């Protein structure tokens, strides 16, 4: 199941969304998160749905893949729907079993909130699907750049993020290796009582911590040997370029915002 998840994964392709500057994509996602709260009726949610589907189309990610990958979260969306459907007790009763009633407002709330949830997930997934983690890091570093004046450690934070990203696959391999070694020494990770399984975490975590510390130490030495002495005086290999498309995309979302303000009830 984890292998089929697409949240947080990058899918290489050559699309409009892939080519966009990570800064504009980040700005769009943040704007969208704010704008979505303007929607409060079928018209406004309809506009947002069309906008999101348009963006999904621009990403050139096959819809089948997108839906398949979002399946695990769709359950959450459906759960949200029913939660609101059953628990809201406002408006006219539209369904009555005597001991069990569904109200009009409940149906509305259920549809709207789960829709909001779904759109948010889709839009953020589109960001990670079309932007490599390192581009996101670069984008964030540049967007947060002005905070440097306030002594906020923007460069350090970005470096930490990129090193974390670099080492995730390495640590996954390492975890797998240590788990297998301990399994061969009689530890059971996949069966047995919960208490035993919790105990089994110790022989996994300690070696993992120790090797991570060792890695961190060696990495620090290697970085120093290669002349790393903090963000001061450093140049950047990866350059970001803001194009007309980026500006147009931002204008599009602003236009959507205006529409929402006009049509909201």
């Amino acid at each position, binding site marked *: 199941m984890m292998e089929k998840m697409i949240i947080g994964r990058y899918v290489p392709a050559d699309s409009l969304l892939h080519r966009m500057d990570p800064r504009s994509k980040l700005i769009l996602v943040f704007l969208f998160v704010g704008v979505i709260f303007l929607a409060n009726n079928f018209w406004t949610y309809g506009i947002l749905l069309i906008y999101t589907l348009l963006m999904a189309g621009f990403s050139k990610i096959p819809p089948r893949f997108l839906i398949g990958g979002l399946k695990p979260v769709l359950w959450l969306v459906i759960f949200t729907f029913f939660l609101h459907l059953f628990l809201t007790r406002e408006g006219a009763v539209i369904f009555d079993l005597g001991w069990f009633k569904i109200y009009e407002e409940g149906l509305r709330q259920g549809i709207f909130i789960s829709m909001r949830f779904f759109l948010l997930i889709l839009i953020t997934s589109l960001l990670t699907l079309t932007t490599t983690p390192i581009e996101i890091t670069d984008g964030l570093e540049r967007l947060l750049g002005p905070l440097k004046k306030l002594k906020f450690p923007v460069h350090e934070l970005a470096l930490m993020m990129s090193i974390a990203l670099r080492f995730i696959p390495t640590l996954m391999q390492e975890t797998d290796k240590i788990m*297998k070694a301990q399994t061969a*020494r*009689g530890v059971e990770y996949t069966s047995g009582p919960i208490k035993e399984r919790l105990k089994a975490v*110790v022989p996994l975590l*300690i*070696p993992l911590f120790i090797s991570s510390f060792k890695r961190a130490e060696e990495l620090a030495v290697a970085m120093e040997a290669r002349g790393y002495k903090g963000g001061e005086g450093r140049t950047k290999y990866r350059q970001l370029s803001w194009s007309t498309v980026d500006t147009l995309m931002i204008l599009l979302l602003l236009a959507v915002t205006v529409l929402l303000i006009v049509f909201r009830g």
Partner: protein
Amino acid sequence: MDISLKNVEYRYSADTPFERLAIQDVNIDISSGSYTAIIGHTGSGKSTVLQHLNALLKPTKGTVFIGNREIKAGRKEKNLKGIREKVGIVFQFPEHQLFEETVEKDICFGPLNFGVSETEAKKRANEAIKQVGLSEEILEKSPFDLSGGQMRRVAIAGVLAMEPECIVLDEPTAGLDPRGRKEIMDLFYKLHQERDLATVLVTHSMEDAARYADEIVIMHKGTVLQKGTPNEIFSDPERLLAHGLDVPDVVRFQLRIEKTFQTKFDRICLKEDELINMLAAFLKRRGAQ
């Protein structure tokens, strides 16, 4: 205890877009008391084979027989502990699995997991530490205060203390200096001989395979390219070289001599002294002519 793989296939992440075929049509027999070497390049499938030897991986096709157990593709297996007690694995860089406060506790970890009593486990730890050439005093130390070479030995002792019937070694000498390398290899060979301990050595080193093993399995691109005794395997060195595999130094040297002098010795030598004798005799004959 015999282990055998019958028509084994394994796919990583089966049924996903990331599926990858690691091995197929693998047939290997490891009989009790034998010393088998599995050789191949990185990515040849040899570590996938290794993980089938004690059911860390279950085949996606075919069957693995381990003693009286049968691990069949597509069937749920329960209680694999019995298998793991009998087949010990020393993974590459085994010192990475140490975690206890003391060396003794770490060595006892395996035996205790398999239900051995505490007194018995301690007795075994005591024995095992001597077997790997360390002194008893080390038992009270923290494994993390030891040198790299000592840590490696402690980790090996942890597997030996399980008293397995078969021991599987995955590049046990990686990263050691020549002396350490020789000591570790000799240690396992001694155990194999004295206790009749079935040994499977997974390695890149044709030297070690030729020196210690009585059976060699050559893995190449996920299949068994060749298997047989060292003499059988290296009697056709050209075949190995054609697949981008190495041959032992001695064999390579003999081939070079044969090519330069345009001759053919009557057999392939696996021992240095054997070749030297043959070569010396040959050169003297040549000189006499």
